[in-house]
């Protein structure tokens, strides 16, 4: 019996057989990089979205005009291009995350009895797999709430400002948004750092900048977005 004989590795042969992109996406590193790239797209969108949101402080006219502008760009086509891109990013992001998560779970069929000691991992990094599904549910709710109005009791098509103020006037709706933004902040905090790492964009000279950027983006996005329901509830925006 040769129970402990090292056999010839088959990894290379497998890599050769599979097609080029399939081999890339087939690997854990490839999938993770797809998550990173789609993550970059979504982060940029989230930042843009946040900037747009802040127009609520400029008053109803400004916000509504901005919303109209978005819908009108490229004869109304651009918004669909962006939506398509975002949808593709979301689908790829979730698809890859699911595949990787299932792989990771399978990689440790028997866990540790004693609670594992976390040393450098963060609360944010350890909750990514919770944050993802929560954010997905939130996005669905958010779309049904502010985009289609399906879940909005007082939806006026085209009057974004009204919809925002009316929506956030209900305390539990605001609570959902605030909670989701906290989750988003955590997801961004680990995600922003992680995606740079996954794309190999690390460099001794800029590593502190990299960490700082992650905190900055996470904090600014979460804080700016949370300020809006708070502003509505406290009557600063009405």
């Amino acid at each position, binding site marked *: *019996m*040769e*129970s*402990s*004989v*090292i056999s*010839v*590795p088959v990894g*290379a042969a497998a890599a050769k057989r599979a097609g080029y992109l399939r081999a890339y996406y087939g690997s854990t590193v490839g999938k993770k990089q797809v998550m990173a790239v789609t993550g970059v797209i979504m982060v940029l969108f989230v930042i843009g979205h946040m900037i747009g949101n802040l127009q609520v402080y400029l008053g109803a006219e400004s916000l509504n005009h901005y919303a109209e502008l978005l819908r009108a760009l490229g004869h109304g086509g651009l918004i669909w291009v962006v939506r398509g891109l975002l949808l593709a990013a979301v689908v790829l992001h979730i698809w890859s995350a699911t595949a990787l998560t299932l792989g990771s779970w399978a990689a440790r069929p028997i866990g540790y009895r004693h609670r594992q000691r976390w040393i450098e991992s963060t609360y944010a990094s350890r909750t990514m797999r919770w944050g993802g599904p929560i954010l997905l549910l939130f996005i669905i709710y958010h779309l049904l709430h502010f985009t289609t109005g399906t879940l909005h009791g007082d939806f006026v098509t085209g009057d974004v400002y009204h919809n925002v103020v009316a929506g956030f006037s209900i305390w539990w709706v605001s609570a959902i948004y605030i909670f989701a933004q906290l989750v988003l902040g955590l997801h961004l905090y680990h995600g922003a750092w992680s995606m740079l790492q996954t794309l190999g964009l690390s460099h001794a000279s800029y590593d502190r900048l990299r960490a700082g950027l992650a905190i900055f983006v996470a904090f600014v996005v979460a804080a700016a977005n949370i300020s809006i329901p708070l502003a509505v509830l406290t009557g600063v925006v009405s």
Partner: protein
Amino acid sequence: MELNAKIPSGPIEGKWEKHIFEMKLINPTNKRKYSIIVVGSGLAGAGGAASMAELGYNIKCFCYQDSPRRAHSVGAQGGINAAKNYRNDGDSVFRLFYDTVKGGDYRSREANVYRLAELSVNIIDQCVAQGVPFAREYGGLLDNRSFGGALVSRTFYARGQTGQQLLLGAYQALERQIGLGKVKMYPRHDMLDLIVIDGRARGIVARDMVSGELEIHLADAVVLATGGYGNVFFLSTYAKGANGTAIWRAYKQGAAFADPCFTQIHPTCIPVTHEHQSKLPLMSESLRNDGRIWVPKKKGDKRPPNEIPEEERDYYLERMYPSFGNLAPRDISSRAAKRVCDEGRGVGKTGLGVYLDFRDAIERLGPDVINDRYGNLFEIYERIEDEDPYKVPMRIFPATHYTMGGLWVDYNLMSTLPGCFVIGEANFSDHGANRLGASALMQGLADGYFVIPYTIGDYLGSTKFEKVSEDHPEAQAAKAAVEDRIKRLLSINGKRTIMSFHRELGRIMWEHCGMSRNRPQLEEALQKIPALREEFWENVRVPGAKEELNQSLEYANRVADFLEIGELMNLDALEREESCGAHFREEYQTEDGEALRDDENYAHVAAWEYAGEGKKPIRNVEPLTFEYVPLARRSYK
């Protein structure tokens, strides 16, 4: 027994080249018809297995560890010598050769040592090509440091992990061949006997350490690269699993064992602190480049080291050996440490320790430079001793580190048993009675990368092999003998643990056959060891079964062999009535306590031949001649 070293004729500079030309070559397409077993996967074993596979031979490689990467070459810290003369400080192949012969106190074979020095330059090139991250200077060129026993800087290093990096280079070359299917690797396999058919080594009996199954592996030649037998001392710098079983089995099958008493006691190890200690970690000799060794001048001075003023310190190496100072060779430094401790000036709880002090170096160079050079070694020390060597001097003491003795081999590295080659520390060849620092890595890789691939071809090409199968009576007999021994070990079921025997053997060896020896002590050991062995076979307890992973059984097998090897070491030490290198017989010393050689009667290799169970082995002699390095009293003063 005839000991023909087969040294090529002609001037020493041309011997190896001439020999290469005269050796039989095998057609590249025919090489794949030959199979070779390599036992051990350290620098010599992994390097040899990979190089022979590169030539096209089919290799089976065995190691007891779970991966070939863990062979104890990994533990070498300081560096590897090569006569590159990159420093422009007067080094040359001849000087390295000269230093090594002298360092070995004229008990090694000139032709072998010259070849080693010659090949040293190729080794560095080879390792750089493999991606070994040697230390470099800002200009991008390779850096060097000095080592004991030399006045030139010829030691290449990779931080304090040179052995690890060189081993990983060889391991990766081996893994590449495994991936290509040219090497079949058998990790967690213990070689338990050598199979000899028609007077030739044709295979091994190995135990799969996971399933416990005994396997017969056959080949056209067997290469033993299983390292030294220093664990006979129990406490040593060796890996816990390192053992002498493979070479001892070969010895019992007819391979002569040369100079078994030549064991190196390394001067800079961490001293013993408690009774359950299992290991004496090495502190690299490179520390002696900047550290100063001292003990208090007064006996029994228990003051903390930093409170002992300068004038009450005895920097004894600098005092006794002014030209080499703290870089005196290992045998000399170790003996000096023992001497000051015997005088009652030793430090630490046990009084068995001396200080290795970096105070002056830190003052001169600053802590950053010291950290750069020795940071990881300081950290190892701090881990173990719980003291910060930046603030308090290290305490060190000599410990068993290397065995210069080993199976006798000729110039081709073949033992007296045809077809059984021995490379690396397992053979006796190049270091004489004392090995200089940074030479073991050099020898292991020279043997593996550059000697065995040639010489084995010569053997294979000039020998006709009968086809043998596992059913061959000799193979079956060897397997049956191993099986019997295992059954016997498991059935004793006595009252003492294996480790207690090993510890006791180690104590006997250290006290009777350690840094200094004398006739009465050696004779006493020759009484004690057989008695202990007898008790072992009656009273040891080996738990568990044979068909499972059984670490106790593995250990018992090794200790049983150590109990025999130890006896031969004492016998060899007794019959070598001179002092040379690490072998210091108190009866033979100069007035100032240095080793006194007897070149008239002992300028030879003692090759012991097994004469059968219970019989005294036969001492054969290979005379050594010194044409290029004239015999002289070794002086480092």
